């Protein structure tokens, strides 16, 4: 019985982690659907967004390290702090600007290239953004606090203690993350279904040329999609950053969105969510049951191996479009 209750707690926590993975994976799917670009930089976008947010909140001077080194000055802070809501809005603006620049400087010049070239370009972009984030805001680990509640949820602990005689440990932050993720997905789906821009986005995803021929501006759609992806990255960055601090490993967590996508299928928003949940629960359960036997820390690879094995049997993922090959 005890084991069963523990396992239930592990599953619940796994589901919450899965939601966080899904949040990152969403950004990938959006860009992949609209522009066919497999955006490796999504994780670094989340890291960059979180770094920018913290630094704006603290009133840090951008490029302080560089300016000090080049000019011999000693500046670090403006000396003010910015309220969370305003900082989030400013960061969202930065992400939109970034999306615009990426489209202008990178994507525009790579139209019509092979997908693999585009993929590698986003790896380059990821390196650039990582360096840029560090140069702009410094590489030290930052704590992010935008006022989201953290710590054990007393209500759930009390309730489960009453039912099972054992109080579940559920982080309140995870509950909030789940709620926000649900809202975000609902908003995205509504946007894609019911707004003019959303329909245009779906049209572009379906067929670039046909979309162009009915007068949809590809460039506008791409800037829009990258902005949305940047915004999703910001949300993911806030969640992960609050959970584990804003640091480089954030972009590795985002790497785990890749197996999530492979499980769910690259082109499917529900796929990203279901995939995230499967991976989240799977890796926590595996670590709980098999982990102690093999030395633990299986979370680093379980997601990838699961996706690998799964793909051998179903190459397009759970909800992906069927891959049809013609000669």
């Amino acid at each position: 019985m005890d084991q069963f209750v523990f396992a239930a707690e592990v599953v619940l926590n796994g589901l919450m982690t899965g939601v966080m993975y899904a949040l990152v994976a969403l950004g990938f799917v959006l860009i992949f659907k609209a522009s066919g670009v497999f955006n490796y930089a999504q994780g670094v976008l989340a890291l960059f967004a979180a770094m920018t947010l913290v630094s704006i909140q603290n009133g840090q001077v951008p490029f302080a390290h560089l300016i000090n080194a080049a000019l011999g000055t000693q500046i670090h802070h403006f000396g003010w702090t910015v309220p969370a809501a305003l900082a989030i809005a400013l960061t969202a603006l930065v992400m939109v600007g970034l999306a615009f620049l990426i489209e202008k400087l990178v994507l525009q010049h790579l139209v019509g290239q092979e997908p693999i070239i585009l993929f590698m370009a986003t790896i380059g972009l990821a390196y650039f953004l990582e360096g840029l984030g560090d140069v702009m805001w410094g590489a030290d680990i930052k704590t992010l606090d935008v006022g989201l509640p953290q710590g054990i949820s007393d209500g759930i602990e009390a309730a489960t203690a009453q039912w099972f005689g054992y109080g579940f440990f559920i982080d309140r932050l995870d509950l909030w993350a789940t709620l926000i993720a649900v809202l975000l997905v609902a908003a995205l789906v509504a946007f894609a279904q019911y707004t003019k821009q959303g329909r245009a986005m779906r049209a572009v995803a379906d067929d670039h040329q046909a979309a162009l021929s009915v007068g949809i501006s590809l460039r506008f759609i791409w800037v829009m999609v990258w902005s949305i992806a940047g915004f999703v990255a910001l949300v993911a960055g806030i969640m992960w950053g609050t959970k584990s601090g804003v640091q480089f490993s954030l972009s590795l967590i985002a790497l785990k969105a890749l197996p999530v996508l492979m499980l769910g299928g690259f082109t499917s928003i529900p796929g990203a969510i279901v995939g995230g949940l499967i991976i989240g629960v799977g890796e926590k359960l595996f670590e709980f049951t098999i982990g102690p036997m093999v030395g633990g820390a299986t979370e680093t690879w379980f997601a990838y191996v699961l996706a690998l094995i799964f793909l051998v049997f179903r190459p397009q993922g759970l909800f992906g479009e069927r891959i049809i090959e013609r000669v």
Partner: protein
Amino acid sequence: MIYREAGDFKTSYRADGQTFPIRLDRWGYYAVLAVAFGIIPFVINDYWANAVLVPFLIYAIAALGLNILTGYAGQVSLGTGGFMAVGAYAVYKLMTSFPDVSILIHILLAGGITAGVGVLFGLPSLRIKGFYLAVATLAAQFFLVWLFNKVPWFYNYSASGQITAPTREVLGFAVTGPATSAPAKYLVCLVLAFLLAWVARNLTRGSIGRKWMAIRDMDIAAEIIGVDPLRAKLSAFAVSSFFIGIAGALLFAVYLGAAEVGEAFGINKSFLVLFMIIIGGLGSIFGSFAGAAFMVLLPVLLKNVLVGNLGWPTDLAAHIELMIVGALIVTFLIVEPHGLARLWRLTKEKLRLWPFPH
């Protein structure tokens, strides 16, 4: 006027199939070999060996390996770091288990073991293609690093979890261990890099290389004209992993001397080698060397300029290096998706016509 094939009439198939059809190229190649084998070993010092030449040669081998898989056979892999780790741990286990056998044999065996592991992780490539495969190879990367971290047998139960190369000699000269001289390190890497490049060149222009390229260009069409995708893909994985395994073995045994798997063979190594072949040129032997030289020299150069000349802190220089590398990758992909090798080829075309461009 000199760089011309005029007057170079071929009278045999042998002459027609040579690697360097233009006389000046051939002489240039021999001259590079003569300098590399005849002069550098006598003038090399520790700084040049450790900062530039030895890492260049080792990464050139790794880049050759990845280029065979990605550039020639078209299978994108992000598992290079993991396969290098296999080579390193294989050579470590062999060195410590059979101390009397020559280290050179151990290095080759380590390559063979890595080839086996590579084939194993290459099996899914028969079903999975493109990005999906790239992500699937991440499984190799993370799983292998975890394995070498968690199973004490691989690092001989050492307390630190590190592996340290014991001293081994070739012809009386130490090539691994703390007492290794710079020329010895350099020569071991040079000989292997030379031989492997020769093998790679001849494999890729032969029947098997053509099969790889057919699979890369269009796998279904290749299958229809009689290329067995199973054999072509798995042989590409095997040969590529063999090269990468040897590079990993050299990196650990000759260059680093001691290694901790997560640090020395992490995911960043995979990307580093991938960048080398993108910048150097996909599907080009020369490109593998050019890319390796570029990626090894760039940090040295930036460090000298930013830290040495401008006196900036090292961490800032490292971050700026990241930015520059990233920007370069993107720029290269936009301007010249075929990398340095294509630039080199264009230069040669220009040279051929010079001084009368029309």
